[in-house]
């Protein structure tokens, strides 16, 4: 499929119409950049820095979700549509756990005392999401492993609705308030009411970086990580090496959901609001990030998440939030047309 897209693209670019298309595209991007540059200039550098930090924080959350999409796709070539809802579930479970651990807005636990309970909640939510995701794999995807590719895709959409339904029944259709427990203080960039970098932003970025570094070390160094890479590259050959692929695939769903669950809690702490169906959009955006970076490629997903987060934040900050989604999905279409394997897609020939 990728090659037919590539052929179509070559044909498209070869013709005179292709040149026109290229020129138009270039013009649009140039205009957008110029408008952006003038706005950046008028609104000042402090604001720009703030937007960049928002973008990073935002992008970190997308990256955490995108990693799960890309890992699962890499190993079973399935777009796990339920993944976005596993992310939401992380938010819901952690929200439920917060009071249990005595963490409330303006509550008795504050400052450094928050670190331990929040970490405990983070770990529990991550593991709970992972268990749910592994169960989904076992029940809904594994029996269909040898079925036509469309079949598990449909069950994935089904599982997505099941999860959303469960969360709807649990907490209702409302925007739920997520306690704002992280310190609101920050580094002021321009006066008391001017732009500032929040402690929150930095915390989100830091947690995401720690998790992503842990993931890449895990995949590069551990035996299970190697088994995952081998299974992704050739499932039969992996079995011939003695790798239990069922266990390896389950582990991939587990780890992907750990990251998504963490993303869900971080999202809540950062935006202070969660909804049962937020995983739909967030999932789509994160999926876009995964495709953007090259689906199946772990570094690509992290990079894609950060880039999409940055684009979103620039669009929100300098244009209009109404444009943001148009922009993101226009980018998805463009990436698929012009570079079907993504920015860091697989480039090694397979003879």
């Amino acid at each position, binding site marked *: 499929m990728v090659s037919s897209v590539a052929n179509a693209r070559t044909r498209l670019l070869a013709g005179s119409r292709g040149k026109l298309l290229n020129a138009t595209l270039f013009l649009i991007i140039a205009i957008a950049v110029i408008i952006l540059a003038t706005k950046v200039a008028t609104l000042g550098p402090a604001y720009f820095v703030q937007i960049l930090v928002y973008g990073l924080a935002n992008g970190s959350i997308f990256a955490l979700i995108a990693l799960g999409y890309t890992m699962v796709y890499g190993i079973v070539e399935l777009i796990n549509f339920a993944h976005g809802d596993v992310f939401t579930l992380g938010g819901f479970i952690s929200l439920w756990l917060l009071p249990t651990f005595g963490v409330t807005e303006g509550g008795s636990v504050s400052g450094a005392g928050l670190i331990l309970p929040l970490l405990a909640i983070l770990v529990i939510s991550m593991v709970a999401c992972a268990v749910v995701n592994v169960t989904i794999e076992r029940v809904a995807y594994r029996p269909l492993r040898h079925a036509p590719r469309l079949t598990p895709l449909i069950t994935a959409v089904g599982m997505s609705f099941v999860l959303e339904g469960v969360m709807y029944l649990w907490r209702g259709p409302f925007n739920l308030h997520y306690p704002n427990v992280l310190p609101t203080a920050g580094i002021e960039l321009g006066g008391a009411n001017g732009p500032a970098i929040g402690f929150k932003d930095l915390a989100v970025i830091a947690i995401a970086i720690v998790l992503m570094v842990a993931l890449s070390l895990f995949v590069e160094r551990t035996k299970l990580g*190697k088994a995952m890479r*081998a299974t992704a590259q*050739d499932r039969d050959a*992996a079995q*011939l090496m*003695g790798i239990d692929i069922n266990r390896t695939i389950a582990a991939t769903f587990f780890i992907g959901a750990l990251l998504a669950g963490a993303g869900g809690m971080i999202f809540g702490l950062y935006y202070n609001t969660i909804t049962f169906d937020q995983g739909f959009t967030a999932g789509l955006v994160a999926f876009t990030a995964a495709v953007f970076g090259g689906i199946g490629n772990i570094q690509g997903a992290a990079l894609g998440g950060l880039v999409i987060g940055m684009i979103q934040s620039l669009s929100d900050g300098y244009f209009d939030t109404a444009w943001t989604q148009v922009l993101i999905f226009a980018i998805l279409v463009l990436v698929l047309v012009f570079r079907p394997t993504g920015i860091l897609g697989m480039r090694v*020939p397979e003879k």
Partner: protein
Amino acid sequence: MALLELTGIDALYGRVRALRGVTIAVDQGEVVALIGSNGAGKTTTLRTISGLMHPPNGSIMFDGKDITRTPAHKIVGLGICQSPEGRRLFPRMQVIDNLRMGAFLRKDPAGVQKDMDRVFELFPRLKERTTQLAGTLSGGEQQMLAIGRALMSKPKLLMLDEPSLGLAPILVETIFQIVREINAQGIPILLVEQNAHKALEVAHRAYVLETGSIVKTGSGKELLNSPDVQRAYLGI
């Protein structure tokens, strides 16, 4: 009792029967060739032994154990390793990591290192390319790596599926020389080949597979001189 014994093995792809009552054996120290034309069931036989598919009928005994229903990932631990058709390397891993994957289940780092040295001795070309990605190797190098990777599991039985397929004549010569060397080191080999002439030359014994059934068996020499085999597979 033979090292490997298949008795009355059937195989099914959906409703198509790919093997019908295949009975073969491999003894210690032997090179046994399985020859036959495309679609005769050679690869299916190896896949069945490796546990990638399970036979509806028949039994497979290895080293005194019944492995008929043993899942694929446990077979290699018992001592059977396959260099599959089409090499099936891990293309986006380095040469050295492919070799390490071959030793995935082993827990004796010193022994693994020793076998790695032995593989490099057998295939000096691979030693020059340890950090290259497997997907970028030439066909011959890939075949060497596939065999090397299989050897890294320290097999009691090595199965080679079409090791000479698609290689230049000079490399074909090299590969069969290596098959001899590996066997001389005491590893029995079950060899599947379309290049019947070469296979029969190195094999102690051989089976001829036709549309899923064994139709002829004998020593390599006997089959080389058999008029039927000559007509059908050797083009004489």
